[in-house]
């Protein structure tokens, strides 16, 4: 072998070694250590990887994963992961404040960045003569548009296949039914959207932007929490909203307190739960909960 050939081979070994050291293909018998930033993404990863991955949702079950505040110890755990599945769309508000390995991050919504919905609901401020800026951002419950959820699941599938190419056949086998189920939900919701035909709806929290846009729902949101009774000011805001948006139904993230339900009914507004299921559910899984959501929404259209 001449010298140039030796150099060529040694370079390939060196670069491949570096690439593999930083982005290793994990041994087949060792389950991947995956972290997810919310439950939908965790569900997609678990459904596709099966026993070949251990998927962790690092935040406590009783908080909104988007607003989790990790400690340094939590970040240390994330830094040791084989893969960190992000939702994208500016979902995890804690991401800009922590240091994570770039190679291990997978933005599951990067392929549809153009479909992100911009928000304009924050307080704008500026400092002295500095430029104005606001802390508005992007709507992040992307998975409530099931065509986007399917793309997110596909992105998880591709990332897993890249990480463990030899298990690709198994991943394909697991991905196809998930894809089918998500697209089925999309069809069902499209039909419901058509049946609702622009009927005014309310959202208890501004988390239904993707659901509204994809399925053509005439939905306006207030900023209420299911476990808290709204203040007088919040009731007044609602009354003003209902005056120009005569809705008969309000979609809730979780079961609202009885007092709120009664008071809403006095205004002629009924409550139904449409859970975005951002965090680990107590019972059921992503698909079963979404099916329940859709079944409840169907009652309105009927």
């Amino acid at each position, binding site marked *: 072998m001449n010298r140039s050939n030796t150099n060529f081979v040694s370079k*390939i070994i*060196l670069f491949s070694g570096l690439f593999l050291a930083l*982005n290793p293909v994990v041994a087949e018998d060792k389950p991947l250590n995956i972290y997810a930033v919310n439950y939908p993404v965790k569900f997609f990863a678990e459904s596709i990887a099966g026993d070949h991955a251990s998927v962790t949702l690092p935040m406590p079950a009783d908080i909104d994963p988007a607003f989790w*505040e990790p400690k340094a110890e939590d970040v240390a755990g994330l830094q040791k992961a084989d893969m960190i599945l992000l939702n994208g769309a500016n979902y995890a508000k804690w991401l800009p404040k922590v240091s*994570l*390995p770039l190679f291990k991050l997978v933005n599951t919504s990067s392929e549809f960045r153009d479909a992100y919905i911009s928000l304009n609901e924050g307080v704008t401020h500026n*400092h002295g003569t500095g430029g104005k800026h606001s802390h508005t951002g992007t709507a992040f419950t992307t998975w409530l548009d099931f065509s986007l959820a399917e793309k997110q699941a596909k992105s998880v599938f591709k990332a897993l296949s890249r990480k463990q190419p030899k298990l690709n056949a198994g991943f394909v086998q697991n991905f196809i039914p998930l894809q089918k189920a998500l697209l089925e939900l999309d069809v069902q919701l499209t039909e419901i959207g058509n049946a609702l035909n622009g009927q005014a709806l309310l959202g208890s929290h501004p988390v239904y932007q993707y659901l509204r846009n994809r399925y053509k729902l005439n939905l306006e949101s207030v900023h209420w929490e299911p476990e808290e009774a709204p203040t007088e000011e919040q009731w007044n805001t609602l009354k003003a909203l209902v005056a120009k948006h005569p809705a008969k139904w309000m979609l809730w993230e979780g079961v609202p307190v009885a007092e709120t339900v009664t008071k809403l009914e006095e205004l002629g507004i009924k409550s139904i739960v449409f859970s975005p299921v951002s965090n680990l559910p107590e019972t059921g899984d992503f698909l079963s909960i979404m099916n329940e959501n859709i079944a409840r929404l169907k009652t309105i259209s009927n």
Partner: protein
Amino acid sequence: MIDSFYLAWRYIVFNRVKTITLVLCISLISFLPFSLKILLKESEHQLMSRAITTPLLVGAKGNSLDLVMNSLYFSKEKPDFISMKAVEKVMDSYLALPIPLYTRFHARKYPIVGTTVDYFEFRQHNIADGRSFAMLGEAVIGVGVATQLNLKVGDSLLSSPENLFDLAGVYPLKMTVTGILKKTNSVDDKAVFVDLKTTWVIQGLGHGHQDVKTIQDKSDVLSRSDKLVTTSTKIKQYTEINLDNLDSFHFHGDPSIYPLTAIIAIPQDDKSATILRGRYLSEQKNKQIVRPKRVIEDLLGNIFQIKEFIDAVVFIVAIAMVLAIFLVFSLSFRLRQKEINTILHLGCSRGTVVQLIVAEIFIIAIFSGLLCFSSLLVLQNFQGEIVHKLFIS
């Protein structure tokens, strides 16, 4: 024989000024080529060792040497900036893994290297004490920085202002040391590593301040509406990031256009490297992709050309020196003719006279050799720092 050495030694001690001059001249002329060789070998080692293990560098179009020297050795010459979009481009290509670098700021005299935690894995660095940076405002320091500034885990380190006269500039950031690297025998020993986002906070692209919605002091608020709060510059901005104020830190503008100085690109294989390089050649007008090994080889080529020239000069000077020494000895013998005649009259043979002269030359040569050798040992001890100052920083 011993008698000859004794007499030669007594003569040398008696004529100490002449002897010292001769020893210094011979030592110096021997030291020069050897020292040059040592320094060049060290510079080649230092420059090439990092260049070989850094397959590709992406940076702004311009001087490729500045790009390589700044990215690999954190030299003071800063290349033009590129944006985070370039990282996404490399990542999305699936041809290489990118490690972003932002080496614009300093803490005292040490460079602050904004990067991701992947850098340590890439350079195979281990943490000797503490842990890697995990949160905004945390820093991992090289062992040299820890020793020189007497820092340990939990201590703080302030970033230095870029310009002392920039009174309106951003506040220095107080960074918390969370880890100290094991000795790496590279420039990383004298660097401060932080998350890329921390360097953007140092630059002022991100900041933390008191909540504008809850400001009590009316003089802090210039105007307020439902959607806009205009505050005066009096508003308290945080110069340290801790658990209490971490939540208030935020970034403004589009993060994809935030600046970087370079990207280390680690291709999957040689084919991926070639494809990636091809893309930058054909598509990227404002960026360049370089192979650090090639750039450093070119630099070393120039250095070795200079070395050849210096070698030639040293050779000529050495010949002149030998001739001068020969002249010194021959003149010395003429001056010592009476002394030699006395030795002969005392009954010594001419061979004894020759023995005396040889012994003198031998002793001078031994002293010169010892001086040269010890100087080279000292040089070898400091070669790393000398090379860094001469060729790298």
